[in-house]
């Protein structure tokens, strides 16, 4: 989130990464990703689809020679988006939440962009070769799908229930886990509720649109009274149109600021949870190893102790990385949330001001309507 000095492996500036364009080819969404070279003013533009992002994520997961990789909170990759079809709307909404709303996948692009930036600014992950090739190579990075590996969510799901409640040896992590579970749930709920609000606002905008259109049908030029009435109707239609636009703006403000922020927050909490889970898994592994070492017969004891030491070392490494990551995560998430909140508030304020201005103009016009 904040810029990192360790950008040596990455040949582009992390903050310049943008998703500038989106093309839809059948069922596949193609994203145009531009970035700025570090050592020159040249820009790079590559086209990637969601599968390439998945490849990147897998590559990040399965990096070798990175100590304590499992303690890293991986920036969450938004789930794959399916091009909008009318019957898919509700499904997509369930799957993607906020990212499915908004026009032309704007939110989705923003989220992907944010994902890339997060990866690029991460002190460890930015060193990954895969990221560089993802951002620079015009060729689509190897179609070879990396092994799904240990981070397959599906296989996790069953164990999760069991292991998640495992008592931690470290109070810090125990607390963090409790809080994380709590906040994950809450932020998910908050996101859903905000989605409801936005959806309702969109519905309202739609209803206003219908109302305003129907008002146009009331126009009748037969005689003086009818003309006067028609004028009133048209005026009302304009006003309702203004109300509609206001709702649209408010909805899109909600969407692009607080919505994205909450969505990101909940996905990040999810990512932290995964990291903590991985650590817990390691902890459990360590504990079982310890147990079996204690039970082990003398001839095997030495081997086991070696093994236990290795595991313990790994666990400690993971824990220390995790601690760092958590601290980094907390400070940056507050920052990100703050920015989203401020942006949101400012936008809403602007919208409200514009709207009030518009309304008072309408009001003035209305009051003068008959005096002409």
């Amino acid at each position: 989130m904040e810029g990192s000095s360790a950008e040596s492996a990455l040949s582009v500036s992390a903050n310049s990464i943008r998703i500038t364009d989106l093309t839809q080819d059948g069922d596949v969404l193609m994203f145009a990703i531009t970035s700025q070279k570090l050592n020159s003013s040249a820009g790079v533009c590559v086209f990637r689809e969601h599968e390439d992002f998945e490849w990147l994520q897998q590559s990040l997961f399965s990096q070798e020679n990175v100590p304590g990789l499992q303690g890293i909170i991986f920036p969450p990759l938004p789930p794959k988006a399916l091009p909008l079809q009318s019957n898919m709307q509700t499904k997509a909404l369930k799957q993607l939440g906020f990212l499915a709303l908004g026009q032309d996948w704007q939110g989705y692009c923003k989220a992907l962009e944010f994902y890339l930036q997060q990866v690029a600014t991460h002190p460890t992950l930015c060193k990954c070769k895969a990221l560089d090739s993802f951002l620079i190579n015009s060729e689509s990075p190897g179609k070879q799908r990396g092994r799904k590996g240990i981070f397959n969510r599906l296989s996790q799901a069953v164990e999760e229930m069991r292991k998640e409640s495992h008592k931690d040896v470290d109070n810090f992590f125990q607390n963090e886990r409790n809080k994380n579970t709590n906040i994950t749930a809450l932020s998910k709920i908050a996101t859903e509720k905000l989605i409801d609000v936005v959806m309702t606002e969109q519905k309202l905008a739609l209803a206003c649109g219908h109302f305003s259109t129907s008002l146009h049908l009331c126009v009748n030029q037969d005689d003086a009274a009818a003309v006067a009435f028609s004028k009133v109707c048209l005026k009302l239609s304009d006003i309702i149109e203004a109300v509609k636009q206001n709702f649209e703006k408010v909805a899109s403000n909600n969407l692009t600021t607080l919505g994205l922020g909450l969505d990101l927050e909940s996905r990040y909490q999810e990512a932290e949870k995964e990291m903590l889970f991985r650590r817990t898994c390691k902890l459990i592994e360590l504990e079982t190893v310890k147990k079996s070492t204690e039970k082990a017969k003398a001839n095997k004891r030495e081997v086991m102790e070696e093994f236990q030491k290795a595991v313990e070392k790994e666990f400690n490494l993971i824990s220390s990385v995790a601690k760092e990551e958590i601290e980094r995560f907390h400070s940056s998430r507050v920052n990100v949330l703050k920015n989203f909140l401020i942006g949101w508030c400012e936008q809403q304020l602007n919208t409200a001001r514009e709207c009030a201005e518009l309304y008072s103009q309408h009001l003035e016009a209305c009051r003068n309507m008959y005096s002409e």
Partner: protein
Amino acid sequence: MAASSERSPPPFPDSEEPELLEDSDDGADAFTGTSISEMDSLSPDTTGPPKDLFNTPPEDIFSDPLSDINSEPQKNVKIQSPGSDEAVDLFSDPLDDEADVISSPEVQNPVPDLLKETVETPKSDVIGKAPIDISSKPVHKNAIGARHQDIFEDPPKDSSKGSAAKKAGSAELFGDDDDDEDEEEEMFKEPLKAMTKKPQPSVASGPPINVFTEVKSEVKVKQHVKDDPTDLFAEEAVKAPATKPSSSGGSRTNGVHSEEQDIFSEATVELSLDSPLNDRKKKDAVKASVSAPAAPVASSSSKPPSKTLEELEEEESEDKFDLNISITNPEKIGDGMNAYMAYKVSTQTSLTMFRSKTFTVRRRFSDFLGLYEKLSEKHSQNGFIIPPPPEKSILGMTKVKVGKEDPSSAEFVERRRAALERYLQRIVSHPSLLQDPDVREFLEKEELPRAVGTQALSGAGFLKMLNKATDAVSKMTIKMNEQDVWFDEKIQDVENEEQQLRKLHVMVESLVNHRKELSGNTAVFAKSVAMLGSSEDNTALSRALSQLAEVEDRIEQLHQDQAANDFFTFSELLADYIRLLGAVRGCFDQRMKAWQRWQDAENMLQKKRESEAKLLWANKPDKLQQAKDEISEWEAKVTQFEREFERISATVQKDVIRFDKEKARDFKRQIIKYLESLLHSEQQLIKYWEAFLPEAKAIA
């Protein structure tokens, strides 16, 4: 109306009238102050000069109180000029030749083969019967009539009352008559000559029917103006169809009515002295004169001028209008299922017709319904648009009665209170209904007799439904061939409009529902943000989140208020107007019924004439006299019904125009109100965001 009814009874007045008219010509001149004979010299085609005259008077003329007399001659001019032009086209056609009527295409009902005897017999029978039918009604109609007499001691009224009664009585009598006739023709064969005569006097002395008891003190001028041209044409059509109906015809009629005009002109002067805004009047008059030619040329030539006059008068009355009604303090009285809501009806006025400037009464819902019943009984057949009261709601009221203090029943009470207030305001803003003694009594009198009929609501509702069903059937069976372009278009318009309003109403409802949903969702969101905030570690973020929760809570309240605003300003407004358009359609139906009566009378007249011809041919002089009497009687009725139709058409038209204006005004008012509320909530929103912004920025 007074004028027309007064003049209707004499069966053949036309033959003697010419000299009389010539005499009274002078009287007219004397009265009007301007020489109408000068007008006479103008050719009827040149409608320009009188209009110029109308337009040009400088302001000072109008600011002179006496100059209101001037407006009278102008009225006359206006009536004359367009009127006399059109009289040729419109009125000479159907009525000029009596023989024509028989063969004219307007007579739609196939004429059954009539036997000489059967012509009279059914009639006599029905007549014998009819008074009994009517006699069930007199009791309270008499009461109304009597009350009227007490309150308005108008000279013209007494004279008109008798004839009015007779006319209306016979109207009802023969309205029934025609329907029955065909079926009963074969059944009754005995000619009862004595009977045919007998009912007449009895009806004449019978009760006055509401049609004519309507407001007479203030609307007199209007009536006079309205009647004037109708008389003119009716007479002209019968008397001198072939001759050029030049302006002399117009002045002649003026002469005929010079006496009445005297009475009325006094009224005019009084009326206009009351209103200080002569400038305004002038402006309107100019406007009216401009708009009158542009208005679709109504088939009844009397309309354009009378309309403009009415516009004028309406503006005046509006200026004078100073009556504020508010309904407050809904209060539940009683317990259980016998409980009811009573409302405080406070009136504030400077109108002299009321005893004091402010007064307050308590009324319950059924009283409001009762008022409507009374008014519609009296006035709906006149073609007035009577604002309908809000509907009874068994569900809503039961909730209130059960006495749960839940928000929905509070909303129901508030909604009803507001609806009743609008209902009363609409009634009193109707210039004619305001004059009704029942309205006054409703506003002023401490204790009202309990309104009956409205409380047994299921029964009444059922009856109403039945009535509506029969109305619908009769509407289908009456096929009016509409000759008035204005009405033709307006009826269409009203129907379209009703549909559109219904559509709009549905949309507003959905809008309101969405708003409510939004407010609910915002509340839930606020809660979840609050939860999130409470479990947040970072104190600044936690604080900001709980602040945000508060902001969202307030926004929720805003949405809720706005939903209520949407509802009360638009949904209720539209619902009101859907009901009102129903009332407008009711007026059109009344007009159609009047037309039907007229047509039936025409048919009857034709039958009588045929039977006369047969009698003549069969050479039966004893019956011939009776047949002739009947013919003249029916001729009178035809003219009377026709006039009634003209009158109701004029009233309906006037009321619809008033309604349209009122509607535009009402909508505009509501829109402004709505905008104000929108603006207000937006400003609140700005405040909330402004308060929140530093909180968000304070997050470390």
